[in-house]
Every structure is written in C-alpha cells, then in structure tokens.
C-alpha cells in the first residue's frame, strides 16, 4: 500500500485512506453474493480505490475528466466513484433504468471519457449510442457474463483487466496517485448529479470538494440528521440509485465520514428481505418506499389469521393515537404513550418492526419528494423515529431537517446550522445560501444564472412558508401550482399525497389548471387492489381490466371522498379517471427517480383529462 502524504484538500478519498490506515480490519461494507453477506474491510476498500485510481491514471485521465458509472448499487460503484475523485476526475452517475436514448444524452452532455457499466444490459445501451458520444474512449464492464468472448469492440475492458492496469501502473509509478491527490483543491468538481428533469432535459449539477465537505460537516459529523451523530456501529442499507444526491450522501458520504457500515441490497425487489436481514440503524427512503411498506402491512394484515388480525388492528389503532400524541410533542414520548407503547411493543410493535426490518432503526428519514403526513405518523406510532428532511442536488441536499425530538409533522423541519434560508415575500419561493450551494450546471451557465442570483441565493423552485417561525412547510413546486378558472391557487401535491397515502392508490395526478374544477388521474396499486379483488372473488386479468371494474371504481371513490372531506371546496376532486396503464420510466411518463412528468402525462392522457371536463 502506498501511503500518500496528505497535502491537498481533505476529500472523501483522504477520509477513506485515513480509515484504512486506522482500522484496516473493520467492516466498511457488505454485499450479498452467493447467498452470504460478504464483508469488505476498510483496507480492501482502499486498495480497490487505489487500483481504480491508478487504472484511470494509466488510461490517461486528467483532472476534470468525467467518468460515468452505470450500475446498480454495489461495491464497484464506490470504488469507481472514489477512484475518480482521487485522480481529480468527475463522477457522473447514470440510473440503471435509463433507456439508451437518455444514456446517449447523459454521456454526450457530460462528455464522459470512460464509462463503467455494470453488465451486458448497460453495455448494450452504451454501444447502441456510442456514435453520439465522441468523447467516450473506454467502456469498463463489471459483470463479464454475455460480454467476454462475444463482444469484440476494442473499447471494451473487463473490470479485472482494468484493475490489472492499475496494478501495473502502481508498480511502475508508485507515487503517481499521491502526487495527483496532493493537487486536490476545494474547488474541484467531484461529481455531476443530473436533475431528474420533470420539465426539461436533465441538467448536470456540479458539486465540488468544498460542497461535499460542507455537507459532511453539517449533515453527518454535525449531527444534522441523526442524533447522536452516526458512527462505525451504525448500519445502513443502500438500495436507492447512487446517482441521486440523497443516496450518495447516505451511502458514500456517511460511510466515508463516519464509518457507517454500508450494506448493499441485492436489488430493489429484494429490499424488504434485505431490510429484515440487515436491520439497519439508519434508514432513508423516498415517499414511494414508505407508502409501499404501509401498503404491504395492509395487505399482509388482511390475509392474516383471525387472532393476529384482530390484535394487530387493535395495536395499530393504539399506535395511531400514540402517533397523534408524538405529533403534538414533536416526537418525545410522554409517560402515558410510553406505557402504551411498552405493552404494544411486547404484543405487536417489536414483531412488526422486526418483520419490516426496522427493529433497530434509530433514525429514519423521508425526503426527495413530498409525503403525506399520515404515512409518517404511522411509522412514528409503531416506534420508528421518522423525520422528514429537505434538500436538493443544487444545495448538496442541505436545507432543512426535522431534528429528533423537535419534529413538526407536515413540515420539512428547521434549517441546519450554518444555512441561511429565507422565503421570498412576493413569490413565496424558498431561497437558501450556504457553502454547499453548487458550482453551476454543467455546460449551462445561463441555467445556472437563473437559479443562483448575484447575492449567492439559490432559488429552489419550491414554494413554502414558515410554521411557528422555526419550521418550514413546503406548499409545492412553483411550476406545479394550479390556478383554477375561478382564480384560486391550489397546491396539487398535498392532495395527491393524501390520495397516495391510501394503500390502494399508487399514482395520483391532480389536474385543473385554468379549469372550472379539479380532477385527478389515478393509478391503482396493483398488489393491494389485486389482493382486495381476490378476497372478494372478483376475477381480473390485467391492470387495465382491474381498474375498469365498477367495484374498484367504488373503492377508489371512497378514498377520494374521504380525502375530499379534509379539503376546502375548491380543493376537492370532483371527478377522477383511471390511468389506463402503469406509469413507466421507459415510456417517458416518469423520471428515473419515479417522479411524474406532468407535461408528458397531460399530453399522453389528454383524452381521459378532457373526458372529465365534458
């Protein structure tokens, strides 16, 4: 192991190098291979990073070159990311679900020189569009199955050969990496995080060493999220795409800064099982995940035997009341809730949390999109300390968070220390200013100028308001606010999330801009509604067939009515119709982060929308 003397800026790479030196044998991460969680020690982690870095040097990567990674979460993702940062390169993450056309856009927009692709599927996408990406010189593939011995493209390189290059380079130039690392500067861009692009083509958010270091100081070491701050004893499950700023923070930065043990889920389908095995102590999820867990509890409960159903229903009602109480106190237990929780823990919550994989969660967070308060309350009630947090790629995910013990449901919490946050008096837009503000959109200075003003304030595009002077409540995305024909301003996301809190509804899109009343396009949750239909003896074939059933319509009407009763007259859904298909990233209806592209949907389902206003 060559030991580089640290003369350059402290980066995530030097942090890992330091950990490998101090605790070489401790577990840095685990990944499941052949049915067993294989452990990777810090020294192994560092050696891999070193080899990747040397390999990149061998391939002629200069400071500022872009290295794209197109893979599911796995150790190699981290090796590639850290190796890139070590040679002062820029990591560009691609979503594994990105179709070839988007891969072409991301590779050519970023001008990536080397692509690290996970398997044949991703390699095929890249080869399909390689002519549109002139800068791309090499494709390194991790899984050789289907590629080695069959593909003859000279630009292909197996991960093993890639590491071997690094090995040779390290033997020939043992000090090369240390020299490159010593040149690292605070203003070095370390990664491009592409925005999800709900309204236009994705833009690459440039985050620098300083941005990341500020995020580490504020969110992780400073205890901006967890309290007490995370440590080597904490476990995390890495399952959301690493190209998203939130998962990058929770996986790569938590790991590098605090030594949190990262466990890679096998795939997004196995998250439930992997959660049970790993029982993480820190858990981050997007609203969709939490909604799905809640829906799962509902389905499983309905098919449980009589005694289990009755007791669990009873304790969930108690949990609901405990949740109400916790909402009032901001997350601190009172003596009475403690007693009820203790009894319920013995009879229900302990087992339930164990089944959900949240038995040992000491800090759970929801972010990246708005969530219905009822969903959060459910988790608080069963004893999972749930916190809604807020941030975006452009401010390195640093804005506000609900602190343990000071939770205000329905808000995204208080600004972190060291963060300036104000709400524009005229537009109600939330503005932030701190050292974590990004360096600009990659290759789009005009777009950057649109969101960062001369004083350094970042315009988030979210409309919000202060609650009790301390917490921030977000109304909606500025562009999504609906102005009805009657001139009323309506925030659709609040209504949509209230609808989505029902286990039977997966997607809800409220329509009504310049219309006399509000309507909604609703997509049912196939699993739960299917189970519901099965128990009623309703035969069905496809998604479409199921949603066309009058009984299902009645079921959803019930949900809509109950949601309507909580809103003012102008904010009520007068009519709704079902989406004829499940929304999909490939079909351009969702972004890679599963956010709905409103404009695309309005166009695709024009007929349904018009039908509701006839």
């Amino acid at each position, binding site marked *: 192991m060559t030991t580089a003397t640290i003369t350059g800026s402290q980066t995530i790479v030097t942090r890992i190098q330091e950990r490998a030196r101090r605790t*070489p*044998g401790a*577990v840095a991460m*685990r990944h499941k291979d052949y*049915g*067993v*969680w*294989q*452990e*990777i*020690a810090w*020294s*192994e982690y560092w*050696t*891999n990073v070193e*080899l990747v870095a040397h390999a990149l040097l061998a391939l002629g990567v200069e400071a500022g070159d872009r290295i794209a990674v197109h893979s599911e979460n796995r150790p190699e993702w981290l090796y590639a990311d850290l190796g890139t940062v070590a040679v002062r390169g820029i990591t560009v993450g691609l979503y594994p679900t990105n179709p070839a056309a988007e891969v072409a856009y991301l590779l050519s927009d970023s001008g990536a020189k080397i692509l690290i692709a996970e398997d044949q599927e991703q390699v095929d996408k890249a080869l399909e569009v390689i002519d549109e990406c002139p800068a791309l010189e090499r494709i390194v593939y991790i899984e050789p199955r289907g590629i080695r011995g069959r593909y003859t493209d000279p630009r292909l390189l197996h*991960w*093993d050969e890639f*590491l*071997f290059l690094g*090995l040779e380079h390290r033997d020939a130039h043992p000090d090369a990496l240390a020299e490159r690392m010593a040149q690292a500067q605070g203003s070095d861009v370390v990664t491009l995080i592409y925005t999800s692009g709900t309204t236009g083509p994705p833009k690459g958010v440039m985050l620098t060493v300083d941005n990341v270091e500020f995020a580490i100081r504020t969110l992780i070491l400073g205890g901006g999220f967890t309290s007490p701050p995370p440590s080597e004893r904490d*476990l995390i499950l890495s399952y959301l795409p690493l190209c998203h700023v939130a998962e990058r923070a929770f996986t790569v930065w938590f790991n590098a800064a605090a030594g949190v043990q990262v466990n890679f889920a096998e795939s997004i389908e196995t998250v439930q099982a992997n959660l*049970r*095995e*790993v*029982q993480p102590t820190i858990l981050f999820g997007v609203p969709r995940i939490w909604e799905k867990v809640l829906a799962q509890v509902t389905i*499983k*409960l309905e*098919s*449980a*035997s009589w005694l*289990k159903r009755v*007791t*669990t229903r009873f*304790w969930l009602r108690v949990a609901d009341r405990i949740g109400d109480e916790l909402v009032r106190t901001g997350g601190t237990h009172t003596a009475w809730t403690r007693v009820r929780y203790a009894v319920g823990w013995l009879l*229900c919550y302990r*087992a*339930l949390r164990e*089944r959900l994989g949240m038995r*040992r969660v000491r800090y759970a967070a929801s972010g990246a999109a708005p969530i219905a308060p009822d969903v959060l309350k459910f988790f608080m009630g069963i004893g999972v300390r749930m916190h809604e947090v807020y941030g975006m790629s452009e401010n390195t995910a640093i804005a506000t968070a609900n602190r343990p013990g000071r939770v205000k449901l329905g808000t995204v919490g208080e600004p972190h220390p060291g963060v300036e946050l104000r709400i524009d008096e005229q537009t109600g837009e939330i503005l932030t200013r701190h050292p974590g503000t990004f360096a600009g959109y990659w290759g789009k200075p005009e777009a950057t100028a649109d969101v960062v003003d001369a004083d350094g304030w970042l315009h988030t595009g979210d409309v919000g308001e202060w609650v009790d002077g301390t917490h921030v409540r977000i109304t909606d995305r500025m562009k999504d606010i609906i102005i009805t024909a009657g001139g009323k301003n309506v925030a659709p996301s609040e209504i949509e999330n209230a609808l989505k809190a029902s286990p039977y509804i997966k997607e809800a899109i409220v329509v009504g801009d310049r219309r006399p009343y509000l309507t909604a396009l609703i997509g049912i949750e196939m699993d739960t509604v299917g189970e519901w239909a099965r128990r009623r003896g309703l035969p069905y074939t496809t998604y479409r067939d199921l949603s066309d059933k009058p009984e299902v319509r009645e079921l959803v009407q019930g949900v809509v009515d109950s949601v309507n009763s909580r809103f003012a007259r102008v904010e009520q859904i007068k009519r709704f119709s079902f989406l004829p298909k499940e929304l999909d990233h490939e079909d351009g209806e969702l972004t890679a982060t599963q956010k709905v592209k409103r404009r695309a949907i309005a166009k695709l389902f024009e007929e349904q929308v018009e039908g509701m206003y006839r």
Partner: protein
Amino acid sequence: MTVARDIPTSRSRARRVRGRPLLYTSYAQDMALLDTTAKRAWTFVLVVLAFSLAAILQDRSLEVLAGAYVMAIGAIGLNIVSGYAGQISLGHAFFVAIGAYTAAALSGPVDGRTIGFGLAEIWIWLPAAGVVAAVFGVIVAPLAARLRGLYLAVVTLGLVFLGEHVFKEWKSLTGGPGVGREAAVPELFGIRLNEDGPLGTGEQTMYVLTLALLIVFALAARNLARSRIGRAFAAIRDRDIAAEVMGVPLTRYKVLAFGISSFYAGCAGALLYSITGYVEPGSFSLLLSVQFIAMVLIGGVATVSGSIMGALFIVLIQPLTRSLPALLPVISSDTTVTPNVYQVETVLYGLLIILFLVFEPRGLFGIWIRARTYWKSWPFSY
C-alpha cells in the same frame, strides 16, 4: 475476478453481527445448528433439565425414560435411512437384534450357558455392536440399490422373518425362544453401571449414560444431515434419477445410508437390553420394526428432534396402555386372552400412524414447527 480476489484482506474471521440473526456473513453461520442466542439458551436449559431429572424422578420412571432414549437412538437410525435417504426399511428390528446379540455375546461370561467372551467394558461392546450391525447393513444395502419403494419394503420385511428364525434356532447364542440369555453388561473401567454404586443408583447411572449417548448420536446425525452426505441423501430421497444426474453416486450413498442406519440400530439394540439385563429372541419381531416406524412417522420424518419426540411418545404411552386393564375390564393384561393390552398397543400404533399420516404428515415435529411459525410470523400469517 482474479485481481479482485488477490487483494489481501486484513479482516479477521467472519463474525456474527450483533442482534441480526438473519445476517449471515459466512456459510458456517448459515449452517450452524444453534444459530441464535435464544436457541443456544433453550437447548442448554433443556439439556440441564434432562440431566437433572436423574435426581428428581423415581428409579422406575428413570428406567422407562432410559429405555425411551435408547429407542430414540434406534429411531434416529431408521430416520437416517428412511427419512433422510428415503429408503423404506421394515427390517430395523433385524439390525437391532444383531447389535443386541453382538454385545451380549461379547460381554457374556466365557464359561456360561451361551456364547460369551467376557469383554464387559461398554467401550468395547457398544462400538462392536454398531459395527457388526453396520456390516450387515452394508451387505443388505446392494439390494436397495436395485430395488425401490414397495419392493425394498418387502425385501427388508423378509430380513425380519429370516432373522427371527435364525435367532430362535441358534440356541447357543440366543438361548432359544422363551428362555433367552443375559444381555450385555454395562461396565466402565470395572464399575458396573446398572448396579447401585458411587455414582448413584443403577437406574440413575444408566439414565445419565443413555442420555449422554443419545445427545452424542443425535448431534452426529444432525451434523451428518447438514453435510455433503446429508444433502446427497435428501437428493436421493427426492428423486434418485435426478440425484444421479447431478453426480450423486446412488449405490455408494445407499450403502452408506444403510450402514449408518444399522450402526445406530446395533448400538440401540446393545443398550436397550443392557437396561433390562435380559434378551429374548422373540422380541425382534415385526412389531419392533413397526414401533420404530411409528416413532419416525409420529415424531417427524427426516428430523432428529422428531425421532426423539416420537420415541418418547411411543415409549411413554406404554405405561398408559398397561394401566388400561384396571380401567376397562374388557381388556386383559394376559397375553393368552383376546383382547389384551399388547394387541391394543399394536392397534394403537397402527391407528396413530394412520392419523398422523392423514392429519399431520410431518409428525410431532410438524406440530412444533407449525406453532413456531405461527409466532415467528407474528403479526402476519406469512
């Protein structure tokens, strides 16, 4: 991945991660017999309880329990060949007899009425009984390699009749029907274990000895079941042709299954009669085989703890059936009168086998598993 594999790790041996019973970081953890703290604790409690019974119970009850433990060893043996490897054997009584007579002959007095070699040390005659029975098992096994299912059952049934005849006629070894001979004498380094001595009463010593042996045999069987051999057995049971295609040599493993099973049977036979001190050739009839089959089926096919439960169940209902004549005068305790308790017992075994096969094919163990799953899956049903 060659380079990746060459990267040295300074990580020490894989350890369990605290409080995560499902997170296995090595196959050894995945395969561990007692993989959770709770299991370890309960097993410990159970073993301590079983040993402490020696000081709590009456000598009469201890003798019954010691008999049950020995029967459990035999049942585990049958479970290996029939439960794990799926080779139906009705000839278990035959191998038990081989063991009983080998041990009796070895430990019997040199100048006695029947054959004897005067080697009363248990560490000599117990393994010898097992080995001789195993040899017979290995001799019989090639039949199993050629036959399947019903045919194998008939052939092994034939063994019982063959054995019964030989033992009745070979008077110099067995003493002849109705007469019998003294069984193996349990002696350890010159101390008679079935007589009152410094370690307690004879029954207490025998109880502790049989319990200890049961634990050893049960552990060995559990370990066998989770080894390569155990997996090969299961493959043969589930589909022998498929197993062969996967590269499991059928003959070798069938011979092995019969050998190991017969070893258990031989040891059980040797111990069983050393408790009572007397062995009669008529005891090794089909009824004994049926008893073992009942233990396996009632306890649980292909489970070691099931075999033990089954053996305890079958042996412990005997005191109940024996007390029937007092309650129901119709049933006699005299073997010459019909109906008598022994007939009732036989009918009861048959009835229990039918009931278990119909309502709980996985036996007592299945009931336990069901109860455990019910609570493990709380608050859901799956």
